[in-house]
């Protein structure tokens, strides 16, 4: 049992922290206001290896373990939750399926540009009628000589409006239920029949684009198939397990920003002739926030460690995501409370943390799905 970080883990944590503090934090509020995609920041993150943390170095990645990934995600998200999710989707939802299920040609072609930060990746799974129930997707892929013809619409796709590449899930055999779903790698910039649909206006993570992807007889080459035909659903489950660690880490990052800013504010704000940090009501909020954040972070790091060591981590990743997101949301609400009236004003960052935190309880598996997964794992073992 060892809670010490390795030198490599410390290094990436330090590097991500410095970059987040110096380069991302100063522009985070503006990004949230303008909803602008942080293209320059993503390029810089790519150069630092943050867009391909776990991608093997022979494909242009940093070749580090999942604990490194979680630590880096925490630091980036602490400065800007939008940057955090852009990074998470590239790493966990695009890179992971490509280097796990891709052919050598696919790995050579698609990983380097995303890992380097040159281009962005996204994950085309969710549809209007298929969120928590992904087996209900209805986008189809039909093989016609040497091309797949894609028909359907994806909703809520993070990075969808700025991504070059998309790992897409489509039905290749309607009669086979979830075993009739397959995955594809799509070059959105070179796919006739693809068009960008609606871009969502959201409560938070405003600098992260959330888009509709429309495929109308869209044609992609036969080699676009990722893994085996009919393997898509199984790939999806494994891919999303890893994505949970990323989102759990994102939530921890938001929570850490809340805690740090709340401590700072409560030490300086005076009422009744003393800093409000003198009052137990405030001390109790800070103590509970810090304790639960530490607990949730340990769950995230533990899940990341299990993934690194190729041990089963489905239950542990779900536990990490559900706890981290619930803790971050509760912390952000208390953070606004601690800031009082100023907490409600856009002049201070706390209201943004509260808006950003909410989505972590929803995407990449709602917390309801997380509880289903945890309960199923536990009840199965008795």
């Amino acid at each position, binding site marked *: *049992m060892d809670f010490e970080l*390795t030198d490599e883990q410390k290094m990436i944590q330090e590097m991500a922290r410095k970059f987040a503090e110096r380069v991302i934090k100063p522009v985070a509020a503006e990004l949230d206001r303008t909803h602008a995609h942080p293209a320059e920041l993503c390029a810089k993150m790519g150069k630092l290896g943050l867009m391909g943390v776990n991608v093997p170095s022979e494909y242009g990645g940093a070749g580090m373990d999942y604990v490194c990934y979680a630590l880096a995600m925490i630091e980036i998200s602490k400065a800007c939750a939008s940057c955090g999710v852009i990074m998470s989707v590239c790493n966990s939802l695009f890179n992971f399926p490509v280097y796990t299920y891709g052919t050598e040609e696919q790995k050579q072609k698609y990983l380097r540009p995303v890992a380097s930060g040159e281009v962005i990746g996204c994950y085309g799974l969710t549809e209007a009628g298929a969120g928590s129930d992904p087996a209900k997707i209805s986008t189809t892929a039909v093989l016609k000589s040497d091309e797949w013809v894609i028909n359907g619409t994806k909703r809520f796709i993070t990075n969808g409006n700025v991504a070059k590449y998309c790992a897409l899930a489509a039905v290749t055999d309607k009669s086979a239920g979830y075993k009739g779903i397959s995955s594809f790698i799509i070059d959105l910039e070179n796919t006739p029949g693809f068009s960008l649909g609606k871009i969502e206006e959201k409560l938070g993570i405003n600098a992260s684009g959330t888009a509709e992807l429309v495929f109308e007889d869209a044609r992609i080459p036969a080699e676009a198939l990722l893994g085996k035909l009919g393997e898509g659903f199984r790939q999806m489950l494994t891919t999303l397990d890893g994505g949970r660690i990323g989102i759990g880490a994102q939530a921890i990052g938001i929570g850490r920003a809340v805690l740090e800013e709340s401590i700072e504010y409560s030490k300086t704000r005076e009422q009744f002739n003393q800093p409000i*940090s003198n009052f137990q009501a405030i001390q109790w909020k*800070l103590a509970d926030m810090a*304790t639960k954040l530490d607990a949730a972070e340990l769950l995230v790091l*533990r899940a990341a460690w299990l993934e690194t060591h190729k041990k089963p981590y489905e239950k542990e990743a779900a*536990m990490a995501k559900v706890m981290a997101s619930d803790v971050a949301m509760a912390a952000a609400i208390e953070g606004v409370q601690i800031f009082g009236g100023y907490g409600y004003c856009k002049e201070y960052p706390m209201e943004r943390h509260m808006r950003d935190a909410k989505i972590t309880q929803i995407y990449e598996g709602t917390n309801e799905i997380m*509880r289903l997964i*945890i309960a199923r794992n536990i*009840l199965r073992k008795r």
Partner: protein
Amino acid sequence: MDFELTEEQKIIQDMAAKFARRELEPVAAELDRTKNRDILKANLKKLAELGFMGLDVDPRYGGTGAGTVAFSLAMTELGRACASTTVTTSVTNMVAEVIQSVGTEEQRVKYIPPICSGEFPAGAFGLTETSAGSDAAAMRTTAVADGDYYVLNGGKIFITSAEYSGVFVVWAVTDKDAPKGKGITAFLVEPTFPGFVIGKDETKLGQHASSTNELIFEDCRVPKQNLLGKLNDGYRIAVSELAGGRIGIGSMALGIGLAAIDAAAAYAKDRVTFGKPLAEHQAIQWMIADNYTRLEAARLLLLRAAYMKEQKRYYAKEASMAKLYATETANKTCYDAIQILGGYGYTRDFPVERYYRDARVTTIYEGTSEVQRMIISRSLLGK
């Protein structure tokens, strides 16, 4: 970063789990009902013989030297079966560790081996008084130097294991004029010292078999060589040494919580309502998922604090976080476990009501949740 247990840690965890199942579980309900001291003491002796009374104590004093992580794992496994036996074990370990930490070689050689071997059924801490619980420094028991002795006058309350302890660490005021907390000294007191009377056992909500007594000192003469640590340094010793006890209590609470939710999960698979097992209703699945998740988080906080203590790093905040979170979580879990068992959960036929009663004191003793929050927030605010 490594979440794997060492071989030794796994062995100790296993041994504790087996002992809990074979020796503690079969008699836990009876102990709770009858407070049968013979059964309790027989098990304490067996635990000592297996090396569980000095898990983090140097082998040259008869300890096992397995480290704090192993200690935490053991308290959790024993805690699943019987909180009364486990709290006795945890406190006894802490007494041995305090003596090892601040005692002279003579004191260590005299008092630690009988604790570890089981010759002393238990050890006890005499800190709390009627007007000094969370505010321990407000204690009033005095110790006045008189020739080759210190003479103790005053009283302690709520002392775990007093009835069968072979040695007590007792704190008393040695300098009334010193600033608060700076004039307190620790002493090693044996039950046979003249002027020392142990009062009757409290009647409590839970942890019945663990005795909780008053100590009365009326001109109790303690030999000078039994002064533990340095004169007037007692409060600092209490504060630093009690942090280890937090890991013990938190770990035990984790065990109680696990026992409760395990019982509830098993029941939920059998009990049928509205045509299907409880376990297929989402409301029940949600309670099961949330409780196991929180207990896992508690486990990691406890092991982190244990690891830091083993590494000799400053671990006060982490120990407080772990104790606070594990004990509060265990209480919630026991509440939910009774709810899952429904009416049966409220009867003595099922163990969950005992877990619920046993868990209740864990947010109170060895530092209330409020004291833990004070420690944590002070650390956060840089005070």
